[in-house]
């Protein structure tokens, strides 16, 4: 370890020790020093992750590796109780359910819940070099089931329903040109703007679809339509980008509030 990094380490360690003691002394609660330690730990990890913005460093590496291990175990614990104990055990048998203190779910076909167990064990066969090919069966089951599921459902939601909603009238409250010009105004709910908007939607959808056309060269009028399509796509992406930017900034404000309020208690 280099001298500078030793110094940095010593500084950080003493600062956090100080924070622990101070937080412990002024904390109210049954176990003030535990609370003080936990808040300091949380602050340390927060800063460790933020230090990544400067450059990769040992503190970030520590926080990152800890996070990976802890979260993997967390997912496993949760998965065990919600899926194995919550979903599988209650179907297996009433004796096993009673042991796990869950309600046995009656069913005439519960015997079939042996199949996912078998599939699960086949999946674990991957670890054996000889029987590894067996693990393709459960994968085939999962992929097949969900492909079938997606096939019809997306055809309905993203295809048929979209045709339905693209069919909009281009002329609204049309009473001839005379009426149109005499009542013309630029208000958002006015006839002109509404008609223009519907036209943009219609043209936008058509040109957007043309942009995604693969089997025809994008030249001539087709190419121009495709160009309009990508313009509209880009405008949309910009709008969505801007919208998210504003949302994310509030998150940062939240994290800074934690550091200054809960840990350092500078602001209240």
């Amino acid at each position: 370890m280099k001298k500078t990094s030793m110094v940095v380490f010593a500084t950080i360690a003493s600062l956090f020790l100080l924070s622990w003691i101070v937080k412990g002394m002024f904390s109210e609660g049954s176990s003030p020093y535990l609370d003080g330690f936990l808040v300091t730990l949380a602050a340390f990890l927060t800063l460790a992750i933020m230090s990544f913005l400067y450059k990769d460093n040992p503190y970030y590496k520590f926080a990152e590796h800890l996070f990976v291990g802890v979260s993997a175990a967390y997912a496993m614990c949760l998965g065990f109780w919600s899926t194995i104990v919550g979903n599988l055990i209650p179907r297996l048998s009433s004796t096993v359910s009673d042991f796990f203190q869950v309600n046995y779910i009656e069913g005439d076909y519960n015997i079939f819940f042996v199949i996912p167990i078998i599939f699960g064990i086949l999946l674990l066969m991957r670890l054996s070099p000889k029987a590894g090919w067996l693990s393709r069966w459960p994968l085939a089951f999962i992929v097949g089931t969900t492909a079938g599921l997606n096939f019809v459902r997306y055809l309905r939601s993203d295809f048929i329903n979209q045709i339905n909603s693209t069919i909009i009238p281009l002329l609204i409250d049309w009473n001839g040109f005379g009426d149109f010009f005499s009542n013309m105004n630029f208000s958002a709910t006015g006839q002109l703007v509404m008609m223009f908007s519907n036209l943009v939607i219609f043209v936008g959808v058509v040109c957007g679809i043309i942009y995604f056309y693969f089997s025809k060269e994008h030249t001539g009028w087709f190419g121009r339509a495709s160009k309009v399509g990508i313009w509209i796509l880009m405008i949309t992406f910009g709008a969505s980008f801007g919208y998210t930017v504003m949302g994310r900034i509030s998150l940062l404000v939240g994290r800074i509030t934690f550091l200054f309020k809960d840990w350092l208690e500078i602001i209240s």
Partner: protein
Amino acid sequence: MKVKLLFAVILLLLLSSLSFAQDDSAEIDTSAVVEELVLPAPPGNLSGVDKPNDHGHSIDLSWELSPDDGGGLNTVLQYDIYHWVPNLMLELNLVRDSISVIQKIIRKTTNGIIEGSQADSMKKVFEKLSRSELFDVRNSLTEYVKKGNKGLAEACKSYPEGGAWLFLDKKPSGTSTFDHIGSKEFKSSGFVPDFANLYYRVDAVTADGAKASSNILGPIQSSGQWYNTFRTPVVFSVLLFTLLTVFFVQKARKGADLYVRPLGGIEAVDDAIGRATEMGRPILYVLGLGSAADIATIASFTILGRVAKKVAEYQTELLVPTYDPIVMTVAQEVVKSAYLDAGRPDAYKEDTVHFVTQSQFAYVAAVNGIMLRELPATNIYMGKFFAESLILAETGALAGSIQISGTDEIAQIPFFIVACDYTLIGEELYAASAYLGKEPVLLGSLKAQDYAKAAIIVLAVIGVILAQFDFGTEFVNLFEVVN
């Protein structure tokens, strides 16, 4: 033995409370005839049908409004809907209640039971039992309900003897339909048996509480259907689309030359692998947060296969950290066979594809670490991405890697566009797998997709023209799929 005795006692207890329950419902029934009140005219012509296109257990009711609803005396406030149930049903409902009380005691969550209610008295009986006794009693009661439900259809035949009218729901004045959606779970108190004789009655109720009953509807039976007619438009489009795809795939197999326009992101993949080889740095392939069930991930697997094959040929290093364990399994399979196809099975390492963790930001933290420490020449992101897309793409851009991305998550596309060198937008991701292989069979399906798009444009143009006229709505309804 002890358990059986207890079971008998509980049943007796329940049956005795049942007689009270019956009295209650009888009371509701006769309260309609109170002399001083002015009775409204009854709703007329109550009729019903088995709810179409459903799984059964439901009846759609409709009636003619009482003449005093919105006209005449204009006194009708609401309609009360009743259905007739045999005594067996009432008894089973009580047994169901006690089962739920036992469940709560077993799970130590009895706090919700209101003091003084019937459930409370049950609680007192059950709380004295030991844990194993509770389980036994509960299992016998469940068995009892299960058997009892089988006899419900038979018991319904005794109408009008041996049963009572049970209040179902109320509807405000002006309503003339009610869908009685029963539960299919025999354990639920809203259970409605299929193929059993059901009877219904609707009362018009005034603000004073005066009631006038309609004719009694029944017997009527509910049942499940084997085909959902509402979804016929979907059948047609599935058939059309399948035919189109199969037709073009066959055509492609026979050797027809199918044109596909070039896609920037795809062309870049090969160059990027070459660049990585020259620099002697690895390639990072991120499959995103999707599960193996997401079609975007499946498309990504195919692209991964092509990339891995090229990587194996060029002898570059490949890193595939994964978020989902099943995705990891599949990806290992894909990469392994790609190395085999490239004739370099020896170069395949088991930890090329490895699991990180199933937590979004822990995964991001780890992938960020890889980007900064291994300095991959190229990062490829293909699949489903959420809020992490920006963190990944920006870190990669700062680390100076060439980045190629593709996702069908619309909200994330802008971030990829800004931070990556090439981005496959939405459908282009799905098309990419066909592109990379240049396999005629896969290209065939692209052609089918394009025809479907052309169909949408044509239909939309026709629809927009028709929408200016009165029969536009009928055209729109062709594409209406009721749930």
